[in-house]
């Protein structure tokens, strides 16, 4: 009944066997193809799967002041992230996580959803630079929330409140634009590099060499083993010429006023302090600056990101008269020149006012010295007329105006020193002689940066030695790293010693009774300088604007030196809309005073002694018994009680 006699065709059964054989040969071919002929390819792919290069981030080098005190340091910063290889329901835990990290609950949920489609081995970053209590929350919930983890990165710790912000600069992730630039060709995407200031200029020294380790990971990206490690090389520290004590004094002296201060040792060009206002907090850049914050900084009319010491190009006003005086004396024109100032004068058919008429006074008979300490405009109009623009331009250019000073900071402005050639080159117009008169008092087309004025007047007070300002000494730099500069370290412009004396004595007169900044006199300190009040717009334009024009107040300038000849320090102060130079002089005087006071308590033999010092002395102490009472004695003085404490690091860093 089951068709026992109707056997199945043996041929077809055999055919089935051959078909099966065919299938197995096909599968064997498939195996052979993968495992024998292309085995190398797939082994490489398998290695790629399981071995991942993890960078070991190198900390940046510290930035130190001239005495080795820390200005910029690093701190370990933790970021909170979510691992997705654990089988936890992230959305269910998200409320607890959001509360612990002080984040918005909805935001965290949205973030988890947004990253749902990205590869599982990539963690979701929740928050950068978490606070210690947030870190404690993560550590204490390791068991309940195993998906919550942290990674550590070294971040820059800058001084608080924008202290030295412009000089130091800030760091940021390398941009696409920078990567395409040949100068930065060695940088890798994701590197944190200097973006401005010292951080940018000396990035190659400060930036370390990231290391890497090869780790074995599973399909979720979790580390399960380690193969090889190349340690990171930390960045080298950089010692600046800046003195924190003087920097603190300069920051306090300028306060919240817009402007700049720069101080230098004119003997060698070492910058001692540099301030610009308004300032910004570079710590905002150390983590990640928000777009709103960045836009606010960039669009601010007061330009907080601008380092005004080297980037503000403004009319130097009467401070320029020192250069005029040097030119006039060296050319033999000014020695015996006397001018009667009655509040103004006619030059080339135009009437030019002296500033003194605003105070309903006149200067009367004025020589060079009075011209300087009383800042008489009429005297320098006359001198300018006698010298002519070419001679003025020659001396101004020799003292460094209209060109970069070569300071080791990025984006220095070059300023403008007008001349006949400059006018033709720039405007394709002939120089008009009456323009020379304005130049004589540092107005007109002249534009200089505070660092240029500081360098020029510092050079004249030093007898004509023009130095290149700099923030690092080559001896403090690692071997082989000498900053490239086209400006020579030192040039000498001969000034006759007699002329030198006349100018510097007149400068001392500025801060003495009868001078324009008499109130800034420093008792017992050989302080000298020159004020300047520069118009920001022309008088004609101011009149046109009427009431509105009152908003355009003059910029106050002052360049001061101590001592008056061969000074140890030169300070340039710019007070934007500071109205008058004598206000700037007060600021400069505070810096000079701080410098001198620090110098006077510089370590002598006594202070260098540890803890206690032995003193033996003889003194005269009249007493009733003996009219002439010489006494002698031997004392041990505890020095630790006597020392005035000085800063050990920039504020906020230590």
């Amino acid at each position, binding site marked *: 009944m*089951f*068709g*026992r006699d*109707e*056997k*199945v*065709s*043996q041929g*077809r*059964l055999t*055919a*089935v*066997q051959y*078909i*099966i*054989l065919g*299938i*197995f040969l*096909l*599968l*064997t071919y*498939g*195996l*052979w*193809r*993968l*495992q*024998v002929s*292309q*085995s190398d*390819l*797939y*082994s490489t*792919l*398998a290695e790629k*799967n*399981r071995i991942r290069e993890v960078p070991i981030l190198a900390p940046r080098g510290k930035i130190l002041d001239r005495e080795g005190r820390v200005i910029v340091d690093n701190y370990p910063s933790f970021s909170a992230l979510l691992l997705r290889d654990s*089988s936890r329901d992230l959305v269910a835990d998200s409320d607890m996580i959001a509360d612990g990290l002080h984040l918005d609950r909805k935001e965290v949920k949205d973030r988890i959803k947004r990253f749902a489609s990205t*590869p599982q081995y990539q963690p979701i970053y929740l928050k950068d630079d978490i606070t210690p209590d947030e870190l404690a929350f993560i550590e204490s919930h390791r068991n309940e929330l195993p998906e919550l983890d942290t990674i550590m990165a070294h971040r820059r710790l800058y001084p608080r409140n924008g202290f030295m912000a412009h000089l130091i600069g800030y760091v940021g992730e390398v941009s696409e634009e920078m990567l395409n630039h040949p100068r930065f060709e060695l940088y890798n995407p994701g590197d944190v590099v200097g973006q401005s200031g010292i951080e940018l200029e000396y990035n190659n020294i400060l930036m370390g060499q990231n290391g890497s380790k090869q780790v*074995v*990971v*599973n*399909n*979720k990206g979790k580390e*399960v083993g380690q193969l090889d490690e190349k340690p990171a090389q930390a960045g080298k520290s950089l010692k600046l010429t800046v003195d924190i004590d003087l920097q603190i004094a300069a920051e306090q002296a300028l306060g919240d006023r817009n402007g700049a201060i720069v101080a230098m040792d004119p003997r060698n060009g070492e910058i001692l302090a540099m301030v610009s206002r308004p300032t910004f907090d570079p710590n905002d850049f150390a983590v990640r600056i928000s777009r709103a914050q960045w836009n606010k900084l960039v669009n601010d009319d007061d330009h907080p990101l601008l380092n005004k010491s080297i980037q503000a190009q403004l009319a130097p006003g009467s401070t320029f008269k020192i250069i005029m005086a040097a030119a006039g004396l060296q050319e033999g024109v000014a020695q015996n020149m006397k001018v009667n100032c009655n509040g103004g004068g006619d030059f080339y058919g135009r009437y030019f006012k002296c500033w003194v008429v605003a105070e309903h006074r006149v200067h009367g008979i004025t020589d060079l010295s009075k011209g300087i300490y009383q800042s008489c405009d009429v005297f320098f109009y006359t001198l300018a007329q006698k010298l002519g623009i070419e001679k003025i331009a020659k001396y101004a250019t020799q003292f460094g105006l209209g060109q970069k000073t070569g300071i080791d900071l990025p984006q220095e402005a070059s300023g403008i020193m007008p001349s006949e050639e400059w006018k033709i080159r720039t405007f394709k117009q002939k120089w008009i002689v009456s323009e020379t008169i304005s130049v004589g008092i540092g107005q007109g087309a002249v534009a200089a940066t505070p660092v240029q004025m500081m360098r020029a007047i510092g050079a004249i007070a030093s007898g004509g030695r023009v130095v290149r300002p700099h923030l690092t000494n080559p001896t403090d730099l690692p071997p082989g790293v000498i900053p490239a500069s086209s400006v020579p370290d030192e040039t000498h412009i001969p000034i006759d010693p007699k002329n030198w004396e006349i100018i510097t004595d007149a400068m001392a007169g500025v801060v003495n009774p009868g001078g324009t900044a008499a109130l800034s006199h420093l008792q017992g300190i050989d302080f000298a300088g020159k004020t300047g009040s520069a118009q920001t717009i022309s008088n004609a334009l101011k009149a046109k604007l009427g009431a509105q024009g009152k908003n355009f107040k003059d910029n106050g300038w002052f360049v001061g030196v101590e001592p008056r000849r061969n000074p140890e320090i030169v300070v340039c102060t710019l007070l934007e809309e500071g109205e008058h130079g004598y206000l700037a002089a007060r600021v400069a005087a505070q810096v000079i005073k701080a410098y001198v006071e620090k110098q006077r308590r510089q370590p002598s033999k006594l202070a260098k002694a540890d803890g206690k010092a032995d003193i033996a002395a003889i003194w005269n102490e009249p007493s009733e018994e003996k009219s002439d009472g010489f006494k002698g004695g031997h004392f041990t003085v505890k020095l630790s009680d006597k020392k005035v404490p000085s800063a050990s690091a920039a504020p906020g860093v230590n």
Partner: protein
Amino acid sequence: MARYVSFRDFDWLLLLFVFIICGLGVYEIHSATEHTKFAGAHIKQLYWIAGGIAVMFAVSLLNYHTLLEQVHWMYIAALGSLMIVLIFGQRYLGAKRWVKLPMGVHFQPSEWVKLILILAVAKYFVDLSQRELSWSDFAKAGGIVLIPMAMVLKQPDLGTALTYLPVAVMGLFLGGLRWKQAAIVIILGGLMMPLAFYKVLKPYQRDRLISFMEPEADSQGTGYQVIQSKIAVGSGGIWGSQGGSQTHLSFLPIPQTDFIFAAFSEEHGFVGALGLLLLYFIVLMRLTQNAQTAPDRAGTFIVMGVVAVLSFHILVNVGMVVGFMPVTGIPLPLMSYGGSSVLFIFMALGLVMNVRMRRFVN
């Protein structure tokens, strides 16, 4: 006649090779799941195998002639159970394939439907007993398989539905399919392919096919499994890779079930994989030999039905692992972890033993 039946006539040689493959499977499941949340799966697999052996002996004791006489009831029961799945089935990963039985047991009826189809097709061709096949016989035989196949496709479970097809093909081939008929069906099928691709397949099934053709296009999604499987097999080389990183670092997805052959190939290389294929080949050849020596036409059809299903499983699974076939979710018989799969195979082997034990009975 059952009185003369003896376990001495069991195909012990076949069973030996089956046990070797099962042993390799248990070893590989252990190795692949050792440090994962599936750790200990190999012990469960041993229990399934033990259960499978018991079922195999039970099935071998029932006379296959008796089974064939009752096959229409079994066929109705099969359709009924598939219907129950469609109505009450548990939805898991978007498909209704399982019925939850009391005591927490999950049951996948589409597996044992395969066995009933083998018997039903065998019964049909035994009753027909002609040298040449007419078009109406062809349609009827096809219908027996196509109805449950359509129901499984509806779950949707393309992989399992496809495993029904070789039962029909084997039946038709041995039942006297004419070359002309074969040619017409193949051409018609070829013409229907685009229609099936866009109308019958679910979007995820289409994705799988596309990712099979171009796995690199979607290396993190569906193409991931294909790529990782090829990397696992390829990195095994000739002698196998030490450590088997693809498997042990979980780059190879579900290495204890569908991709167990990839895991084995990675650890034991071309030599090991070829040896394993040889074992399967021996088993299949031994089965066809049993079909040849079967006492009657019914026995031959039953054993060859089992051969068809097993061959198809091996072709599709290993084909998938080496990148010849799309990812369909068909397990590798005897090796892949899973109760339904193990029980089915041992029941099928039970049928084979059933036929063999009765080869001298007349």
